[in-house]
């Protein structure tokens, strides 16, 4: 491993540690009261004290988020394929999709609660509804940008629409899909945590809300940090998948490194 490579791996950690150090220092120097902004040392101490409930609630949130995310991938892919493959569906569906995406999902949660009650289901639905849009758009873009010559080669061989979709459309849009997954997974966390905050009695969002109502601000921050950490973790998983599945799209980078 070269020094440059080692540095590249180390930098994110250094930046993270540095950020906490600045935060800690600022709290001490400016004597910020802990119920406004607790010191990271206090936050981590609280994290340790509450490790049981934190683990339980964050695992629940992770679980909810992943289910919502998987549903978003399935639904977003299906809608993206339909929109990208047929101009009729595109014209008909696109305005609706944009309208739906413009609705703040937090406004939807009460409605979902009326339909399904509070708890896990609204969180899953919110995560899914917020994450499917970038997936659908990216897949549709992948399909729309197929080289016309490639399509012509297939059509003149006698390929039908289905064959063109499976032999060119799908592989062509996988890099777009994986790029969108990285956005979608972080959006899923936003969706599930929002929903848990508004309408749940379990999950990290619920934990943070109840902590803040008891003015246990360090616990709120512990929850925030955990959500962020889970986001990074899932993002990394998506990156690994992306590298595996779409190596051909990264060829130039492979050549350099």
């Amino acid at each position, binding site marked *: 491993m070269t020094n440059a490579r080692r540095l590249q791996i180390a930098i994110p950690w250094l930046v993270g540690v540095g950020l906490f150090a600045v935060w800690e220092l600022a709290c001490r120097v400016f004597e910020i009261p802990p119920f406004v902004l607790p010191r990271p040392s206090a936050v981590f101490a609280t994290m340790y004290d509450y490790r049981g409930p934190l683990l339980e609630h964050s695992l629940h949130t992770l679980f909810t988020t992943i289910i919502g995310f998987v549903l978003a991938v399935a639904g977003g892919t299906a809608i993206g394929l339909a929109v990208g493959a047929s101009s009729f569906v595109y014209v008909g569906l696109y305005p609706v999709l944009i309208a739906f995406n413009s609705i703040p999902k937090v406004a939807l949660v009460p409605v979902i609660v009326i339909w399904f009650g509070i708890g896990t289901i609204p969180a899953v639905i919110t995560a899914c509804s917020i994450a499917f849009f970038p997936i659908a758009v990216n897949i549709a873009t992948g399909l729309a940008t197929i*080289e016309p*010559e*490639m399509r*012509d*080669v*297939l*059509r*003149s*061989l*006698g*390929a039908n629409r289905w*064959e063109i979709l499976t*032999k*060119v459309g799908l*592989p*062509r849009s*996988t890099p777009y899909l994986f790029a969108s997954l990285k956005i979608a997974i972080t959006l899923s966390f936003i969706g599930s945590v929002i929903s848990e905050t508004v309408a749940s009695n379990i999950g990290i969002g619920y934990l943070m809300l109840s902590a803040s109502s008891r003015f246990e601000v360090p616990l709120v921050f512990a929850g925030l940090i955990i959500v962020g950490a889970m986001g990074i973790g899932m993002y990394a998983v998506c990156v690994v998948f992306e590298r595996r599945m*779409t190596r*051909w*799209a990264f*060829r130039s980078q492979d050549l350099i490194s």
Partner: protein
Amino acid sequence: MPTGNFVSIRNVSLIYGEGEDSILAVQDLSLEIEKGEFVAVVGPSGCGKSSLMKLVTGLVRATRGEIYVGDQRVLDPIRGVGMAFQNPTLMPWRTTLANIMLPFEIVQPHKRLIGRDRARYVAQAEQLLATVGLRQFGGKFPWELSGGMQQRANLCRAVIHQPELLMLDEPFGALDAFTREELWSVMQRVWIEKRFTGVLVTHDLREAAFLADRVFVISPRPGRVIYETRIDIPRPRTLQTTFEPRFVDIVHALRERISQELTV
């Protein structure tokens, strides 16, 4: 009514677009190609050569006139045609071998047989790669090949399923002179072996004279056939042939003819 010819283009016009913006790309163009004949189409840029290719394969519909391939009128994309364009359009997610086997997955009867007989088809593809000098490269991805190698693979993909009709739209245009001339010989060898009907669009008059039985010259847009000449040089033609006086004469005659037509 089909004539005896394999490809028959009769008084075909093609208009792109509608109203104000419409472009008359091809006007009243007629052309007959015999079965097993290799013809070249030359003409100035934008005269409608690529459009002609798309008309013949049914990728675009003629605005007026009729086109027959075999004894079928062309109204929709016809099946099983081999096509190669100036950029190789290989699929970057497939290896070279998988790329050139693509027609087997689409064209009958191969589509039906390839599941059972994969090994035989792979052997066939590897043999074809070897004839164009890509023996070791089947497992490589297209981006690991040079431009000339990609174009060889592209030609392989166009001919592997032994199409009755091969359409080449400037496939050698982006290559350096050495590679281009080498690929002429490769192309000729494949044609002599398989005797498909071939249509080659090119800007290069030497290329046209080297490969074709007949050369058609198309006018500036809207495209019409303004000149046609038969190349009576026996095959196989070699690079040596291109320096012989009669070859040079043919190329000169073509060039003269084109500049005459363009200045009138």
